[in-house]
């Protein structure tokens, strides 16, 4: 049960950081998003993001910072297996499901609705 509480608190805290970046520091939504991805990637590279996911579950794996972590995780694990080129081939290994899903569901949505504003 306490896992839910931690997920709520950690996930909420990441979103609060994002909101503060937009409202207080006047970052654009695109800058806010990419900053959080980069922070996630750095924390992942330092081995700090995985413990956060273990602690807070979806609270850490759902926010966009998790995407940065996944990019680094895929790149590092592939680099261990196949050498330095693995950084390039592995970067989308873990995240490919998310990216492909975005494209495919986006396409399906566009068949049903008017996609262009």
């Amino acid at each position, binding site marked *: 049960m306490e896992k839910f509480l931690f997920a709520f608190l950690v996930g909420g805290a990441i979103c609060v950081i994002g909101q503060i970046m937009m409202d207080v520091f*006047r970052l654009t939504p695109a800058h806010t998003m990419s900053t959080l991805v980069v922070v996630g990637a750095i924390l992942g590279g330092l081995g700090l993001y995985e413990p956060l996911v273990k602690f807070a579950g979806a609270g850490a794996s759902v926010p966009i910072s998790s995407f940065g972590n996944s990019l680094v995780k895929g790149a590092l694990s592939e680099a261990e297996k196949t050498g330095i080129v693995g950084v390039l081939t592995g970067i989308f290994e873990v995240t490919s499901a998310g990216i492909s899903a975005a494209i495919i569901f986006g396409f399906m949505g566009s068949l049903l609705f008017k996609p262009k504003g």
Partner: protein
Amino acid sequence: MIQGHQTWVFNSKPVILASSAVGGPFEAQGALAEDFDVLHGDIWLGEDSFEKAEKKFLEQACEIAIHKAGMKKEDVQFFLSGDLMNQIISSSFAARTLGVPYLGLFGACSSAMEGLALAALIVDSKAAQNALAGTSSHNGSVEKQFRYPTEYGSQKPPTAQWTVTGAGAALLAQEGEGPRVTSATIGRVIDMGLSDPYNMGGAMAPAAVDTIQAHFRDLNIDHSYYDMIATGDLGRVGHQIAADLLAKHGVKIPAKKFTDCGILIYKKNQPVMAGGSGCACCATVTYGHFFKRMRKGELKRILIVATGALMSPLSYQQKESIPCIAHAVSFEMLEGRN
């Protein structure tokens, strides 16, 4: 003619023969829905882009104004129009349909009164028997050009404003019945260094204050001359700043007669943040709401101060501040002459 530094006094007092206001679905749910001539339920107007829809709004506003004046489009001598689109395509494309000699203007959201002031000058100087002034804006096309793609659904702060979807047109002539254009004060470009595109009202407020003060100074009058003084699209945030600035400069206008088209147009429960904005905001509220009230006799003399933010998407991406302008035009119902 010219009086003081920047005010034109129109001796012949050109008359607003007819005016029109066309709006979209959001305006139909607004506080002034009754004052529009036509309200559309579809922001696309059956077109495949927002830009084409905006052009149709403007075409329709012109058609209605011409029709109400009992004229044909061939009778219109000049068409003056401006809008927010790059290269003012809405105006120019509507002018293509009208086939009337055309002057394209850019004054951002101040275009409504910029066009009207120039149309009055043309008619007053007898350069033409009549002239049509129009303007339009579209929430979708403006969001797309100035902010984010509409399908992106970006968050907005409470100081942001909602661009009015619609168009307004006014047909001026030398003689006839209706509100008369008595004077116009052409604004200076004022830039107080604000660069937040989500607080246009705050950026434009000093321009409105400068023009209102110039108008009073040039004509040697004060607020008591008017029944209503309305700014174009400052919204709740900008209008309060303008009122505070005026008070600070010793110009106290009673709150009940100092209003803003962007505050009037929508209901409080509509999610429009600080209020309405866009060329069509000032145009539809003036040509629909205010002129209707003048014709009913509820208002005798009004001053409309249309405010405009003269930046481009490129200029604010390059971190330039937002230069702003305001043009004031005064309208009067004349006893015995109408």
